């Protein structure tokens, strides 16, 4: 009887203000889509630039057949150089597992890595003491000449551009997303307020005959939460769509170099989905809770 009643009332409320309900749901959807996409893009950028975290700007990859003497010589060069602030040695196993994580959803790449674990070599990752590009370039050259060094890579302009542009884009999306989230909250607040106004006589009677506060409130709470959830569901569609787009671009021949690694892992994807859903519920509950505490005197 009770569930019956609550379900019926919630559905009725949602139907009664259908235009306001749609407005609230769409605003939730757009704001959460922006939020989810921002999270996803950030994870993609993090993944593609993972080697360049913590200020690392220079990586010296070692040959598979590097000897201990050659290693000592390379370390001596790094130790003596005044431009070096910090050096981290990443062995083959760590590099391999890092790559396996990043290419979690790229079957071809995983197969290649599985077949040939030495594909990702040992490396020294160097963070510089200053921003002097010339000094770092000369250090890179010095390292490249050392026997046992396979290749030296420095942080390319493209990585810097990707990080810079994405930081800006993320901030802009976050600002718009937060603005829309506030709008969504207010729309839900108003939708619930309208629903309460439409049902003011019933609420009055319910209070008179002794319905408990929770009994009166629950249909309105559910109405708000349903609006938040449906909005979050639509936003998830956008997030998964973006994820698919990123993955296809990463697999595409023409874009592989730029997009390689620019995908979120499945853990990150589902984490994003969970955040979007949770935010939807929170927005819905907060909007209706606010309306109830302000406009429903019991």
């Amino acid at each position, binding site marked *: *009887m009770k569930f019956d*009643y609550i379900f019926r009332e919630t559905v009725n409320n949602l139907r009664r203000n259908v235009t306001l309900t749609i407005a609230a749901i769409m605003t939730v959807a757009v704001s959460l889509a922006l939020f989810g996409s921002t999270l996803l893009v950030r994870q993609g950028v993090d993944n593609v630039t993972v080697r360049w975290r913590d200020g690392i700007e220079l990586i010296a990859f070692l040959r598979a057949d590097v000897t201990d003497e050659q290693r000592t010589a390379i370390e001596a060069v790094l130790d003596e150089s005044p431009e070096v602030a910090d050096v981290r040695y990443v062995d083959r196993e760590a590099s391999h597992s890092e790559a396996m994580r990043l290419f979690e959803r790229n079957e071809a790449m995983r197969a290649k890595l599985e077949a040939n674990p030495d594909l990702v070599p040992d490396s020294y990752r160097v963070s510089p003491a200053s921003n002097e590009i010339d000094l770092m370039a000369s250090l890179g050259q010095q390292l490249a000449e050392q026997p046992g060094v396979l290749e030296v890579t420095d942080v390319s302009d493209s990585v810097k551009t990707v990080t810079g542009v994405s930081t800006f884009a993320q901030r802009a999306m976050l600002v718009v997303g937060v603005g829309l989230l506030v709008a969504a909250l207010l729309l839900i607040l108003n939708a619930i307020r309208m629903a309460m106004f439409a049902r003011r*006589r019933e609420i009055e*009677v319910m209070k*008179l*005959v*002794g*319905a408990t*506060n929770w009994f*009166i409130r629950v249909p309105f709470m559910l109405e708000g939460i349903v609006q938040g959830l449906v909005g979050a569901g639509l936003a998830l569609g956008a997030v998964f769509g973006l994820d698919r787009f990123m993955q296809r671009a990463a697999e595409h021949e023409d874009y592989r170099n730029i997009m390689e690694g620019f995908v979120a892992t499945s853990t990150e994807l589902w984490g994003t989905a969970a955040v979007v859903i949770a935010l939807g519920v929170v927005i819905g509950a907060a909007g209706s809770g606010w309306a109830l505490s302000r406009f429903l005197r019991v």
Partner: protein
Amino acid sequence: MITFEHVSKIYKGDVEALHGASATIEKGEFVFLVGPSGSGKSTMLRLINREETADKGRIFVAGKDIARLSSWRVPYLRRNIGCIFQDYKLLASKTVYDNVAFALEVIGRPRHVVKAQVPAILELVGLDGKAQNLPEELSGGEQQRVSIARAFVNRPLILLADEPTGNLDPATSVGIMRLLDRINRTGTTVVMATHDRSIVDTMQRRVIELEQGEIVRDQARGVYQ
């Protein structure tokens, strides 16, 4: 059943609706509250089911000091108090049956109880043939009977009536008073605020007269004056 001890109620803007009112109403009594508009009749009724709270003094209902009731218990107090009004407060979109059933549904009564009690109460108030009508299809007297059915379906200890015959012609009013009298005979305490001189004079019940928030007369088997 209901005790007022030196109760005062001051509304916003320093309007004193009730001033030091004391009265005791026993179980099963039928009491008229009379007096001009604004004398505090409705305030007394609203204090009894805690729609309002007293600013001074204490009010006991069924042995409990209702000011001390925590807010989550107020609904349970109200389940023991039925209310009817001059404007009936029926839900226009619901049938007679659903209006009465609503009162049981929202306090969580199981379906079989609702199915058994609603037809019985509609028969008691003389509306068993109108269960599927909407309120707008009924006369004023019939609408008031629906509201009495709704107030009484849960068998409350107390029935509060605020000008229940205010919108009705004298003949219809007599019918409503017979119904309230019948409910009172089942042991339900009835407190009724009214302006209707002829009803008070014919019924010959206890009369509490209010004037500017003070009880100026409390008379067993009284008349309107």
